[in-house]
């Protein structure tokens, strides 16, 4: 399977917001999150990689997005910052629980946010997260446990024990 100009839109529509969420989770800034979207899909458009399945494409996109977060950080561009509260005004949460959860995750340290997001939103297992982030499974397990503990403290009954 190749990704080219004929089918790139399909993958863009399917994974654009996933990549954006990874970028926002990392930067807490929608402008830099869209930089990650831009760089990730440009790489997808220009890659010669032969993909063997839909899952392969998805995993490739997620890994590139995570790596692009680190690369965008090194950029010398001065980015306009949008505060979380400003950005939240543009979001349509259905109830206070959703917005509380969003804020609680954004309050976590960056490395915990990444692990939590890849686990709960992208559905990756600890082993897969360890590979994506280039860390040991032990480190990921620890970070996941600590992130959950912090969310429990902040969200109380709204966050179930696991």
């Amino acid at each position: 399977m190749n990704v080219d100009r004929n089918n790139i839109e399909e993958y863009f529509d399917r994974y654009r917001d996933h990549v954006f969420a990874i970028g926002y989770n990392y930067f807490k800034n929608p402008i830099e999150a869209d930089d990650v979207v831009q760089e990730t899909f440009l790489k997808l458009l220009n890659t010669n990689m032969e993909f063997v399945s839909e899952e392969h494409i998805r995993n490739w996109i997620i890994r590139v997005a995570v790596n692009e977060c680190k690369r965008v950080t090194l950029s010398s561009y001065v980015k306009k910052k949008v505060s979380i509260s400003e950005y939240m005004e543009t979001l349509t949460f259905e109830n206070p629980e959703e917005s509380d959860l969003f804020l609680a995750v954004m309050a976590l340290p960056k490395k915990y946010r990444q692990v939590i997001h890849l686990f709960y939103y992208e559905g990756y297992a600890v082993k897969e997260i360890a590979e994506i982030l280039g860390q040991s499974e032990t480190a990921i397990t620890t970070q996941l446990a600590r992130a959950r503990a912090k969310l429990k403290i902040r969200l109380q009954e709204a966050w179930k024990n696991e």
Partner: protein
Amino acid sequence: MSNREKYTDAFSKLHSGYASVWEISGITHNRKRGLRMRKTMAVLACLIVLTFAVSGIAYAATDGQIINAVKVWINGEEQVVNTDEQFVVEMDKGDKVVIEDGDIRTEVQAETDVKVKQNGDETEVEIEHEE
């Protein structure tokens, strides 16, 4: 509702500002050119500005028919240009520019000595050098 479902519901509210993948390729091309131009200026290289009187050339070569469709390629990538009577192509040393205006094809290679070919014949073009 599980923690996973709650998390997914909350974060599914986040959406990219890009509506189309083609917005991205257009924006990135301009950004790359901007980067290259800043680097060029930083090392005090020459910026060559090429000005054409497009409609005048088209009129002379096409026996009076006005050509409105103009295409410009810079290093193989097609640019969007308006169809006013004149337009300016900015390029760095090493850039190759191809301009098609109806039946007229003009190629410019921006090296130390700028050479211009138009329909196989050399032609004079007004060039301004900026440093």
